[in-house]
């Protein structure tokens, strides 16, 4: 018996929105089995992974700390993904944004100016944009694949970070640790809830969601992005320029990632360190898809993924589980989501390959 996929024809709208929830439930069920195999009490593990981390105010606030970069980058990426522009290098753009924004704080480390923070915001955004401009240029000029170029530039960015904190930007009073000096107060994002780490960066994430929503639903840019993604020929019929869309989407996602990087160093970290991000730039890809490439969906997906980071850390501390559990959960979530999406489009049929090919030929006629 062979399995084959048969097109369902019409796609159920309800299922498109239900599939992220189905994926979450399946991930939890698979998680129960996974923990059982590891010899851990599954109920305890699930509680420690998904509930305990947000049972305190601190923990709850932490959800937004982790959610900020995920939502910000996820919204940015969702634009590109809708237009079939695949920026996989948000992690690199985040790093360069952190360096550009953070660099400014280090340059003016004695500043008390109110303008330092806004300047860092702009510098961070521009830094991410500049990094994303490289794949945009290469794609529009030489037709290179942006998946490869943006991904490879991640490693260049990480090496640049490593060079700077081991060399020119190393804290002169830091006992040779590969870290920059601490940012001045004027370069640190204000905390929103006293005693927690939740900082003003979350407002940027919310602003990105709101702007993104308006852009995609009402603005010509969003319209062009959607048409380009759904029907490239119709886009060219309408006179939308493909190269312009490539530039816009890469710059938007790069800018959002750069801003997220700057927020990370200016908010929770407050200096430049070797590991700025635990892979936010990559996780945001899952966030974008889990959120159905819609800004509001991305908001919720971003918070859910933030929870997997917190849960991973907590499970490591409480249950002595390896930190890789976070990655496993994120991977399972994406896997189940993609599987659910395939099943929305196709139904599985059992049957020999021989008849299926002739049947397919028949349907063409």
């Amino acid at each position, binding site marked *: 018996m062979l399995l084959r996929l048969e097109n369902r024809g019409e796609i159920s709208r309800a299922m498109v929105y239900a599939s992220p929830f189905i994926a979450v439930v399946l991930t939890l069920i698979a998680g129960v089995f996974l923990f059982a195999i590891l010899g851990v009490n599954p109920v305890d593990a699930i509680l420690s992974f998904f509930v305990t981390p947000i049972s305190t105010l601190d923990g709850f606030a932490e959800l937004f700390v982790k959610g900020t970069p995920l939502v910000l980058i996820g919204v940015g990426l969702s634009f590109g993904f809708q237009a079939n522009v695949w920026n996989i290098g948000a992690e690199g753009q985040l790093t360069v944004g952190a360096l550009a924004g953070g660099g400014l704080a280090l340059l003016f480390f004695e500043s008390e100016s109110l303008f330092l923070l806004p300047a860092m915001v702009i510098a961070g955004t521009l830094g991410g944009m500049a990094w994303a401009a490289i794949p945009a240029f290469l794609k529009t000029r030489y037709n290179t694949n942006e998946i490869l170029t943006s991904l490879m530039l991640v490693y260049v960015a990480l090496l640049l970070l490593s060079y700077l904190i081991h060399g020119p930007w190393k804290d002169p009073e830091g006992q040779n640790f590969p870290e920059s000096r601490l940012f001045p107060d004027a370069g640190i994002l204000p905390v929103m809830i006293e005693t927690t780490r939740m900082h003003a960066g979350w407002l940027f994430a919310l602003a990105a969601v709101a702007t993104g929503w308006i852009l995609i639903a009402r603005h*010509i840019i969003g319209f062009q992005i959607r048409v380009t993604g*759904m029907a490239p020929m119709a886009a060219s019929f309408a006179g939308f320029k493909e190269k312009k869309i490539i530039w816009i989407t890469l710059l938007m996602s790069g800018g959002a990632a750069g801003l997220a990087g700057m927020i990370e160093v200016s908010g929770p970290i407050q200096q430049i360190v070797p590991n700025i991000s635990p892979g936010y730039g990559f996780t945001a890809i899952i966030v974008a898809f889990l959120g159905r490439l819609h800004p509001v969906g991305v908001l919720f997906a971003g918070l859910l993924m933030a929870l997997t980071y917190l849960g991973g850390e907590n499970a490591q501390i409480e249950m002595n589980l390896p930190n890789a559990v976070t990655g496993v959960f994120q991977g399972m979530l994406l896997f189940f989501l993609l599987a659910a999406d395939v099943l929305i489009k196709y139904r599985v049929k059992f049957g020999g390959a021989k008849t299926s090919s*002739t049947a397919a030929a028949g*349907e063409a006629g």
Partner: protein
Amino acid sequence: MTAPRLELKGVTKRYPGVVANNNVDLTVMPGEIHALLGENGAGKSTLVKFIYGVQRADAGWMKWEGREVEIPNPKAARDLGIGMVFQHFSLFDAMTVEENIALGISAELAKGDLNSRIKEISASYGLLLDPDRYVHTLSVGERQRIEVVRCLLQSPKLLIMDEPTSVLTPQEVEELFKTLRRLSGEGVSILYISHKLQEIKELCHTATIMRMGEVVDDCDPAEETARSMAEMMMGKNLVSPERPEGIETGAPQLVVRNLDMESSDHHGVDLHGISFEVRSGEILGIAGIAGNGQTELMDVLSGEVLVDDDDSIIIGDKTVGGAGPVERRAAGMSFVPEERLGHGAVAEMTLWENAFLSGATRKDLLKSGFIQINKSSKYASEIVEQFKVKTPGVLNAANSLSGGNLQKFIFGREILQDPSVIVVLQPTWGVDAGSAAAIRQSLLDLAADGAAVLVISQDLEELFEVADRIAVICEGRLSKSWPPDEITVDEIGLLMAGIEVDPAGAAHDSEAGGHAA
């Protein structure tokens, strides 16, 4: 009285929300050429898929030579002696004719000297075909012959042909008809699906007419007129397009001079020295077989592909060779591309969004970067109302409309922008007769209102119906143009096949027709 070759009784097939076939009866006698006639969506394809074993029916039975049979898959159908030539060929370009045929038949049949059997069949039925040629070197007509020969190798008793002439020149159509008549004479039944009424009158012995999934009538095509059959097919009195009287042509609105274009696509056709002009109030028709540069010409005219020489295309008094679609629309041009879904409209988007797609500038639907949703919806409703588009509302997605309705919507969208020039490619391709008539009428009306209209079409009947002048495109070169009463279908056929003719002199030379064979 002999038993029918094929008899269907009460065949019913339901899809979610639609009854594709409702209680359909059909009887095909041995040696009969039987037409299955109906608009798009009338249920012809569903019925044929049932006969060929591609699909199961929900109710009803089928008798084959007096014996009740069930056909679970196409192989079983072939084993019984049913062959089918699909509208879209499934051939591999990089393989030879023989290899392609071998792939499509059973292993036993493919054994032995297939090559000489192909030659034998192609010779005896006048289907010229060299088994060693590669498919990519063949014309569409020749490719169709591969499919026909493939069926004939299996000595079928019933041959199903789905819209076989849509890709052929008039001469090729004649050749195909000879073959089909010959097969019919040998006792092979032929089920012939078409919407070209003239052909059915010429070829078929009986016609079964379907409408909305049901058989509405059987008739003898020889005793009917094309008009009466069209009316049976549509269930109402057909209004054929009327050419408004006394139109004066004005100044040239679209001028193309020595247009050269190298196709960026490997399999594309380069355009060479194309020149023509269309005056206001005039309809120029461009005939040609598919794949002779029509798409490329369309792309160049719409500005989706730009040319270096800005002067080679002039709209009104603006040179636009290097200007994109937005500028050309601003200059007064509208276009209707061939593909409705994915080119002229975005399948998943709503009708109002699709109205916005090309109407944004000329209809002023954009305000400082923001889409005027209310205004766009109003515009879409206006299109739906004026062009009688059947849809529950403008919030429905484009792909929820039938082909004919979507085409009417797209035409309405372009026409309501008051273009001074409109260029349309295959305006009624795959569109039901009712919508096709409405679309042709709208082109005539538009010209009467002073627009310059360019119609690029493979449908000669259509061009003769609407065009004031007809030119032919072949291998990227455009012929001169002639008024329809100064050129015959045969001469156009020769031009389509790339044979030089001079209608002024050769119009009465009966030998000219013979060369195409």
